[in-house]
């Protein structure tokens, strides 16, 4: 078990170190996140009342779009210089590799979510009524998206059409996360009379299944 965690932490640290040096998520994906919020502002006629009402949904759509980029990036760092082969030959368990990569994506997603939360507060006038619910939703959704995304990133990897294939494979599967997280935010931001905490149960179930199932399936895939 400690070997497993050590391996996972190794992989996560590696991915995050690569990100710290290349700053792709910071310099490219983060601005993209803000850009999405701005685009919604233009598209919805920049009426702050409308935007505040829709902020939860717009927030989570922005997160999903950014997640696509973060996952693509996570997959592509393995493709350079046969890095993936090196990892497999190291004898590391595929599940540890999965958890490591998913953890790195998770961290990046949380950073993006914090940024986007600031974004909707400033740009859409959202008010955080229940900060605890916001944090819980953000963390659970990030786990769900990171794990599912890492699995699907592997499924779409090695193909020339990965960029176009990943979105259509991943996003329908994440529909429950989008629905659940948006409803939870509806409650947390006070835009609708909903029991957000009940929706967290759905998110938690998804997160657990995605983590366990992803680790299991990743093993089968990486053996190819």
């Amino acid at each position, binding site marked *: 078990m400690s070997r497993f965690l050590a391996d996972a932490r190794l992989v996560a640290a590696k991915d995050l170190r690569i990100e710290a040096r290349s700053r792709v998520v910071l310099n490219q994906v983060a601005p993209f996140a803000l850009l999405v919020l701005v685009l919604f502002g233009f598209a919805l006629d920049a009426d702050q009342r409308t935007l505040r009402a829709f902020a939860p949904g717009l927030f989570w759509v922005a997160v999903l779009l950014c997640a696509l980029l973060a996952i693509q990036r996570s997959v592509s760092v393995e493709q350079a210089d046969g890095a993936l082969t090196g990892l497999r030959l190291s004898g590391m368990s595929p599940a540890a590799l999965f958890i490591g990569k998913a953890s790195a994506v998770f961290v990046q997603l949380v950073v993006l979510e914090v940024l986007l939360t600031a974004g909707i507060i400033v740009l859409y006038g959202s008010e955080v009524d229940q900060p605890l619910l916001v944090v819980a939703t953000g963390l659970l959704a990030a786990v769900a998206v990171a794990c599912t995304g890492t*699995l699907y990133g592997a*499924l*779409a990897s*090695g*193909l*020339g*059409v990965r960029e176009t*294939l990943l979105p*259509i*494979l991943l*996003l*329908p*599967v994440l*529909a*429950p996360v989008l*629905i*659940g997280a948006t*409803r939870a935010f509806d409650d947390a931001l006070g835009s609708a009379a909903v029991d957000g905490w*009940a*929706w967290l149960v*759905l998110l938690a*179930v*998804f997160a657990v*299944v995605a983590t366990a*199932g992803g680790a299991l*399936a990743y093993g*089968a*895939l990486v053996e*190819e």
Partner: protein
Amino acid sequence: MTETMVTTGTTTGSGGSRVLGAVTLLGLATLLLFAFGLTEPDVRLHPTTGEEIGQFDAVRLLYLHVPLAVFTYVAFVLCAVASAGYLVRRTPWFDTMAHASAEVGTVFCGLVLVTGSIWGRPVWNTWWEWGDVRLMTTLVLFLMFTGYLALRRATVDPRAAALRGAVVALVAVLDLPLVNRSVEWWENRTLHQKSTLGELKIQDLTLFTLMLGFLVFGLVLAWLLLHRFRVGWLEREDAEHGVATAIAERRAAIDGGDVDAAVGEDA
């Protein structure tokens, strides 16, 4: 499907499948006769105003839509089982069956959405209803398996395609209850529940025609699966044959001393 059929050399048809096809067409003709000629439109009297209400002749679309919906799910369940079977056994039979049932299932699923929408326009007065549980779930299902087919087409290595496809199919099927549950909790109002089949005056003839619809579209599914499976099998054989031929040609070129031909122009 367990008997070994000998190819006639030019088609995927066989004695048995031709009989199946003929019976299916006959059944389809009979279904059309019943759906359009022998059954009554759904007409009821409003309890208070006394005016005529109901689906009227739009109900005839249900003899098409409902069987298609049922067999969409049958096809996808088949795909999930075949995918699981492939992951356990890793034989081409399971993989070919998974791919075939996914493709046929996706066609059926698309038709379910289209026929449902066309039926919904006169009956519910809308082409689409967000928050309707069955609609949303079927739409997400359609999108997931469209992705499955795209992934299979994009993956060149057959074993990788089989493996990845199996994982995608199983994840899709396991995700579906979560999708269903989340949409159900999301919206309480569902048109699907409002206008239930139970509201229909289900006379004996309506029920019989519906059952006939199930039988006919079950046959359609069987015929399509059978032939699509054979096509998939032949595709595999063709690919392997192509590789084997290329290898043989290379070897012959080497043995014949023709280095240029062995190396190939693209070297």
